[in-house]
């Protein structure tokens, strides 16, 4: 069933990977450029990595981005999981369908419309309560939670549906409170969905530019916003240096994750084999 790749398939994969990675290779190459140019290579140097360390603004924007991504994805995951449980329990077809349609809006809507619509709301509320500098961390957090929520809900919901609804009831019959039943029975069986949702919202929030662009204020600058204002001028290779560091950090994490998964599977298989032998 799982066959070896034919040479043609291999070639195809290589071509697509080349397409996906060519610009990233360019980026890595130019992060070592000796001159300020991002189009003419003039010898190797690590000066941009050094200047990056001294660039407080960029480092602050990286921390800001991480803070925002962690907060928004955690809040969205908790709220979204609860929402999925609630939606799954809805009996009224119409209410359920309406809720799902509303949930889909931030996914279907162009980001620019989502960003603009939220900015209009924030500015209006800001002028209502007389707070002129309403745009900032809070508004960005709200916006990020909002566009993360549907991704969490839509990855948890299928897992809930796959789960045997009798399981939590059985647990309760055996004396669990509903809360205990949720934490002991439901939660473990939907945990993969929750993890997927968390990962997705973290990723989306980390890389979001359009929605942040419209809901940000001067007091809280994230990395994509900073890069945007830079790409208008001249992107100096230190941004490439930063991206290169991020690239290798993620690569390292992903490899680590992969290896641990492979190990886990092996251990499981060994255990099963031993169980079979006994």
């Amino acid at each position, binding site marked *: 069933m799982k066959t070896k790749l034919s040479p043609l398939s291999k070639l195809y994969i290589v071509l697509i990977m080349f397409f996906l990675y060519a610009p990233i290779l360019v980026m890595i190459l130019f992060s070592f450029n000796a001159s300020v140019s991002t189009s*003419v290579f003039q010898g190797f140097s690590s000066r941009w990595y050094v200047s990056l360390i001294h660039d407080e603004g960029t480092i602050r924007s990286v921390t800001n981005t991480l803070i925002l991504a962690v907060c928004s994805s955690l809040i969205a995951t908790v709220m979204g999981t609860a929402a999925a449980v609630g939606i799954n329990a809805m009996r009224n077809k119409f209410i359920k369908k309406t809720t799902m349609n509303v949930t889909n809006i931030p996914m279907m809507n162009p980001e620019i419309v989502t960003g603009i619509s939220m900015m209009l709301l924030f500015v209006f509320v*800001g002028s209502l309560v007389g707070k002129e500098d309403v745009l900032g961390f809070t508004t960005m957090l709200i916006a990020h939670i909002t566009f993360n929520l549907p991704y969490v809900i839509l990855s948890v919901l299928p897992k809930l549906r796959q789960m045997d609804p009798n399981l939590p009831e059985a647990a309760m019959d055996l004396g669990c409170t509903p809360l205990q039943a949720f934490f002991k029975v439901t939660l473990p069986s939907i945990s993969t969905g929750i993890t997927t949702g968390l990962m997705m919202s973290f990723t989306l929030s980390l890389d979001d530019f359009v929605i942040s662009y419209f809901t940000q204020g*001067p007091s809280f600058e994230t990395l994509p916003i900073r890069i945007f204002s830079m790409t208008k001028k001249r992107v100096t290779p230190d941004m490439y240096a930063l991206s290169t560091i991020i690239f290798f950090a993620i690569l390292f994490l992903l490899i680590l994750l992969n290896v641990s998964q492979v190990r886990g599977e092996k251990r499981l298989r060994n255990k099963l084999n031993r169980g079979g032998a006994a």
Partner: protein
Amino acid sequence: MMKKLLFTLVTLSLLFACCFAASAYENEAWYGEQNAGKVINVFNWGEYISDTYEDGMLDVNKEFEKLTGIHVNYVTFESNEDMYAKIKNGGASYDIIIPSDYMIERMAKEGLLQQFDPNELPNYHYIDRKYLNMYYDPDNSYSVPYNVGMVGLIYNTKMVDETPTSWKIMWDEKYAGKILMIDNPRDAFAIPQKILGYSFNSTDEKELADVAQMLIDQKPLLQSYVMDEVFNKMESGEAAMVPYYVGDYMIMHDVNPDLAFVYPEEGVNIFVDAMCIPKSAKNIDAAKMYINFLLDPEIALTNAWYIGYASPNTSVLESEDYEEMAQNQFLYPDEEHMPNVEYFHNLPQETLTRFSQLWNEIKLAGGTNVRVYVGFGVTAFVIVAYLSYTAVQKRRREKWYDFRSSK
């Protein structure tokens, strides 16, 4: 080379300063400690402040933080109009903005600016008198000049054979695909306005229409409309010419010596960018300190070097380190080299609306593409064909079921 020279000079002067343990800035005591820990939001043009310690320059914001303990949130805008929209529509408050002349006139008129007395600032006396009491701020109650500049034509000598003297070269088909145009209505309109002999501040409906038509005619020859992207495109030789600000030419020339500059004979725009405090500012005292700090001889000098625009600060022109720049005929032209100049003035609301309508139309021009319509037609046809095909199939299947069940 100029920068290296500056480096040695500044290092020497720093050493000198260290030996005598004199304070680096004037009136340091004036700043005091009372605002330490506060935050100000500064909204400025991109690449419009020195932000590096390389080559003997100073990171101005960092120096300000060191001196006063006030934290600076520094953000940039691309055009006067962008900045105006941000201030006008609220949502964010800024303590310092640096608009150009005509925008100051407009914002003051609309009550968006804070009035203050610049004579309170100890370094205010450095401002050249010829930039005071200007038409946009006759009583000097809203603004303190920061930079002066003019718009000229930057061109790449390797790509342009002749020595241009007229804006008309931007309509020369020889350079099709190599011409960049400035991406903001006022500055873009200014060029045809001068070619046609109109004023920048014309409100005449027909004149505006002529100008817009010229820009539409020019569009097929353009590589693109740019603002700050101009640095990358000109430095790398991707484009041959662009109308842009003189200070930015000085920076580009450092990177690509093939670039040259000219003030076309028809006339050019001269502008003053000045520091203002918006009405929505939260920290007016700290903002005033910031303005005063930018007027400090040491800071003004480093900025003049870094930004490359003409400085309205007399101390800069008197500085020995600046001698070479002070003689630059593009920055500080003498009588003989002075081009025809005109300032932008604020325009009445109807003209502004007309400007933005025409600008939209220019942007939309040439958007029609027959292929797109054909593509849509074909797609729609395929969709309809597929839907009817599936419908027919479905009916056929149903018929077959009917046929079987009737048997």
